[in-house]
């Protein structure tokens, strides 16, 4: 047992860190630090810088542009990326549909989609959740009917993150309504520019526009846009959800935020002195840092295990990472609220894209607190994660 990083791993961390220092556009970094939203251009610009360096799709197999890094290197890269901070790769393309295509797709599909995902020539979004299908995803009703050489798609998806930017969608559609509910689902990809696709924004409680409703009204999709086999979509969805395991802890994000809290708490006064000198506040901050340290080590244990035994089946330990990771992220936003105190109140009507530079950036703290309530809901709510642990780990 040795928890220290090797010399080579430390050198790798330095290499990654200095690349971020030299290449992340300063305004992009500042906006992330201040909790502002980024424009589509700002994100895509950064992702193309990453892709040019060969780090756009780090965990893909080498033949499709991956790096061949060890599990620990991936961990270091992600941590540094989150902690710098720089925008993380667009998960929908890089972590979700990409691996499904290179694992289950045809050669033609690989050729057509993978390079465009890596360079974000296509912005992908995820068509999974429906109004009646949240945690019970397999109850989804969006239908794809085969008509000649086309699929005809009808239905509605919801919580579709950043669909307003999307060029492509990967969609779970029911292709056999007589089969048991998990069995009759297929994984179909198509252009968001197709006739019959309507995107309607959902405004969330922070005032932002991240998620959308997406409607399909007789959308015609070429038959070859089915990925893998018909009616096997549920398997691919499970593969996809289990594929991104350790990143969900977002340790680097919380680390960066805790550093910011410590910095701010040295400046904001309470009772005539910086709030960091308030013993109760300081202990709360320390408590959160300790939880995060424990999570970081739990994550490293999962990473080391994957490195040794390969990425086999989804590791139920990732449910621990999701639960604790989301709780800690939420605690950090609460601590920020506590630091800023009464100045949490002013509302930036442009809070959505953070474009109103005249508005004091402290205006982003309350929205960020509101927005972070999502992290214990999305990606399989924390209650679903507890179901998974009970079943897969404890055998209940």
């Amino acid at each position, binding site marked *: *047992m*040795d*928890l*220290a*990083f*090797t010399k080579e*791993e430390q050198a790798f961390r330095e290499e990654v860190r200095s690349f971020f220092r030299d290449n992340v556009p300063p305004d992009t970094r500042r906006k992330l630090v201040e909790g502002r939203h980024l424009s589509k251009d700002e994100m895509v610009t950064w992702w193309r810088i990453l892709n040019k360096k060969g780090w756009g799709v780090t965990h893909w197999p080498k033949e499709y542009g991956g790096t061949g890094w060890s599990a*620990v290197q991936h961990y270091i890269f992600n941590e540094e990326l989150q902690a710098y901070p720089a925008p993380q790769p667009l998960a929908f393309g890089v972590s979700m549909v990409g691996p499904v295509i290179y694992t289950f797709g045809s050669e033609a599909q690989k050729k057509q989609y993978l390079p465009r995902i890596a360079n974000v020539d296509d912005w992908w979004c995820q068509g999974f959740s429906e109004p009646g299908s949240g945690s019970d995803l397999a109850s989804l009703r969006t239908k794809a009917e085969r008509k000649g050489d086309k699929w005809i798609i009808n239905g509605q998806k919801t919580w579709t993150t950043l669909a307003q930017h999307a060029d492509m969608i990967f969609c779970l559609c029911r292709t056999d309504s007589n089969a048991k509910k998990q069995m009759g689902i297929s994984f179909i990809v198509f252009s968001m520019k197709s006739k019959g696709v309507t995107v309607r924004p959902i405004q969330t409680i922070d005032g932002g526009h991240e998620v959308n409703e997406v409607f399909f009204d007789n959308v015609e999709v070429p038959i070859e846009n089915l990925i893998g086999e018909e009616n096997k979509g549920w398997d691919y969805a499970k593969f996809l959800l289990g594929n991104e395991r350790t990143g969900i802890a977002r340790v680097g994000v919380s*680390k960066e935020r*805790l*550093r910011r809290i*410590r910095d701010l708490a040295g400046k904001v006064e309470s009772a005539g002195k910086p709030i960091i000198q308030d*013993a109760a506040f*300081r*202990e709360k*901050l*320390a*408590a959160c*840092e*300790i*939880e*995060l*340290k*424990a*999570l970081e*080590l*739990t994550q*490293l*244990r999962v990473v*080391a*295990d994957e490195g*040794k035994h390969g990425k086999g089946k989804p590791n139920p*330990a990732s*449910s*621990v990472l999701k*639960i*604790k990771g989301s709780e800690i992220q939420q605690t950090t936003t609460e601590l920020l609220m506590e630091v800023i105190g009464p100045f949490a109140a002013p509302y930036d009507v442009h809070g959505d894209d953070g474009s109103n530079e005249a508005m004091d950036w402290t205006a982003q703290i309350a929205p960020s607190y509101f927005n972070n309530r999502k992290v214990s809901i999305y990606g399989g709510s924390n*209650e679903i*994660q*507890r*179901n998974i*642990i*009970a*079943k897969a*780990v*404890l*055998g*209940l």
Partner: protein
Amino acid sequence: MDFDLTEEQRLLKDSIDGLLTDSYDFDSRKAYMKEKGGWSKAVWGKLAEQGLLGLPFSEADGGFGGGGVETMIVMEALGKALVLEPYLATVVIGGGFLRHAGTDAQKAAHVPGIIDGSKTLAFAQLEKNSRYDLFDVSTTAKKKGDGWIIDGEKFVVLNGENADTLIVTARTKGARRDTSGIGVFLVPANAKGVTKKSYPTQDGLHAADITFTGVEVGSDAALGNPEDGLALIERVVDEARIALCAEAVGLMDESLKTTVEYIKTRKQFGVAIGTFQSLQHRASDMFVAAEQARSMSMFATMAGDFEDAKERSNAIAAAKVQIGKSLKFVGQQAIQLHGGIGMTMEARIGHYFKRLTMIENSFGDTDYHQRRVADAGGLI
């Protein structure tokens, strides 16, 4: 970075797990509690036979040169089996003082007896008002000729009743809460002027309140610098905290396992209560808490070797905070999920809960260590 055990470490784990499976079921434990001193000389002898009592000592001192990971493995196993024998007091703490500060003569006088199981030790440190501050020492050691005269009272000295030798913290200079002027002394338990009041503790161990009245010891009694021993005390107590973290992980593992088994078999409303989601989620949260604790126990074990004493203490304090929070949750919920049966002396689970609870209040509780981490500027 590597979380795996080496081949030798796996063998060590198998051997102690095997030994305890054979000799430490719940009924045997009850019988051991009734023996003189409250633990089993026979089990202690078996631990000696397997070399476990010599584990952390160097080969030159007759030991096996084991490190922090080896102690972690042993303490986890001892926790899992709810062992009563004084491994912490004798090997971890007593052995720690001898390893870090003992002269060749002191080691020659004490280490062989520890390793062969013929002698045990106890750490007389806690005082009426010192609570968790290691530097808060009123007991005095006054120079007399080449030796010392020790006067004072120590409380809740684990294994104080049985120990052959007491390791006593005493002030050689300065005022009660000065950080300098503290010494550590080896005192024979049968020395003139040592009086003991023994009692069982809540978790089934035995402790003693010990009064030292004009106890004379020789010049060879002092471990390390008798006027500046705080750093030594902190180092050894940090190792005790690391060991307690590991013991707690073993206790939590077993508590969770026992609880899950129970709710799988206990039927109400015609079904196993483990089919109820509210209980499943509680058990899942216990698992999360136990895993976070395990991570920090490993972290503490590694931190034991940090060269910077401040960094070491801060990391170990952080671990003790996580362990404290986790053990309280796991312990309390284990009782809750057992329902009424969990309240009885007859069921195992309550005894795990009690040991966990006493660990929380040993060598600094959660609040104490959280304050230390906060005052040290945090952990990020």
